[in-house]
């Protein structure tokens, strides 16, 4: 087929303005990993089923593998690389370390971004509610009890 039409977009990624020209089928996940070398966001299933690619767009958690980047022109994106501030870990990152809330670590960036979205939503109060609203993030190592404990610690610090 003919050379695809590339489109200019501008995103604010982790506080930095990024102007790019991309093919319309570029997912936000591939843009982050392949175009911006931000490989903290992980490609798990690439079908919206595992949550490993979770990032925040304008403060809300979404699945970056099912997001076409062109549809987000002008948006602010926060990835795992953007959570630590001034060299200090985000409370969720510290809590995941404190609670050993991972084994292989592959789902962890998605878990932490998802948890940051969950805390911003302010809907989850109990462990049951955390579990339900984190169900879009699969951990095949089964670190779930420690993930819930880590989120509870971070929620306590921020409330």
């Amino acid at each position, binding site marked *: 087929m003919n050379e695809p039409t590339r489109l200019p977009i501008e995103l604010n990624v982790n506080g930095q303005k990024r102007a790019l020209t991309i*093919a319309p089928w570029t997912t936000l996940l591939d843009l982050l990993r392949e175009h911006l070398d931000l490989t903290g966001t992980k490609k798990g299933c690439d079908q919206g089923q595992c949550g490993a690619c979770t990032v925040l767009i304008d403060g809300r*958690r979404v*699945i970056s593998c099912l*997001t*076409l980047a062109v549809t987000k022109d002008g948006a602010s994106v926060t990835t795992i690389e953007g959570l630590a501030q001034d060299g200090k870990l985000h409370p969720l990152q510290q809590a995941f370390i404190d609670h050993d809330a991972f084994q292989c670590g592959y789902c962890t960036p998605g878990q932490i971004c998802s948890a940051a979205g*969950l805390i911003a939503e302010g809907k989850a109060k109990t462990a*049951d509610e955390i579990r339900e609203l984190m169900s*879009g993030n699969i951990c095949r190592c089964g670190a779930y009890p420690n993930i819930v404990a880590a989120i509870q610690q971070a929620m306590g610090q921020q409330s």
Partner: protein
Amino acid sequence: MIGFEYARASNVADAVSQMAASPAAKFIAGGTNLVDLMKVHVERPTKLIDISKLPLDKVEETGGGLRIGALVRNTDLAYHPLVETRYPMLSSAIMAGASQQLRNMASVGGNLLQRTRCAYFYDLTTACNKREPGAGCAAIDGHNRMNAILGTSDACIAVHPSDMCVALAVLEASVHVTGPRGERVIALTDFHRLPGDTPQRDTNLEADELITAVEVPPQGFSTNYTYLKIRDRLSYAFALVSVAVGLELNGSKIKEARFALGGVAHKPWRNAAAEASLSGQSASEAAFAEAADIVLRDAKGFGHNTFKIDLARRAIVRALSQAARGTPQSQSSKKIA
């Protein structure tokens, strides 16, 4: 993904005229289902018309009811104060579906237009009449555990995957659409189709039409309702069987009963005779079981999914009991109420 052109729609009229000019195009809003299907080449649009920035994202009061813009995100609808208080069954059904990330992306209009998750529809190496009319149906004699037991045809036994639509069927919502021939309103219960011999058509929306809003009438069943979803894991899974119920009670007597099933048919499944059998009756397990029997009289299993007939019967009785008692199923506590 196969290459495609991309353009943003500047307003609703522009979206409609761009579609009229490119019949093999698709509208994109949240993209949660469309992008997924494009990755596996089940959907192959030549162009995407981006409607995600159109001003169809408001929830407005309309003389006691609500007009919900087609681009309202699923989470925003579920958490809307007027929905939580007046239509808690709708909030509950939305929160029972997908994950919070997907609900943050998915639009109301897109939820209505979800394609089936039948594994054979997704698998290009197998026969599927929905994907390729005339090819046959690999599900009928295949692994059909997730497939339909009601309203099936020799051509297709797929189910509609939405939870939200099951609640909208009970609420008797209507779907506002616009297209080159003007605007029209389709009752939600007439919006999705049975497969018959045209399973490639999921809905009565024409390919060149755009959903602009979903309207729910005032009656919200906010006291006696439930959304009970039975699935293979406790969260983030499609329904084996789900039941949305809305009851109006007069003391212990049922004034009006409405219920719909998800996960069992090509559309949210209501049965007028079963609902009518409950009116004027006392709320009792015996009456609920009789209503369930009416719904399932013509149910047909295909081997792996035959258990759904019994499961549906019990889920209907359980859901009607939850609604009558005023103890709706919580979507976070997994204890069956």
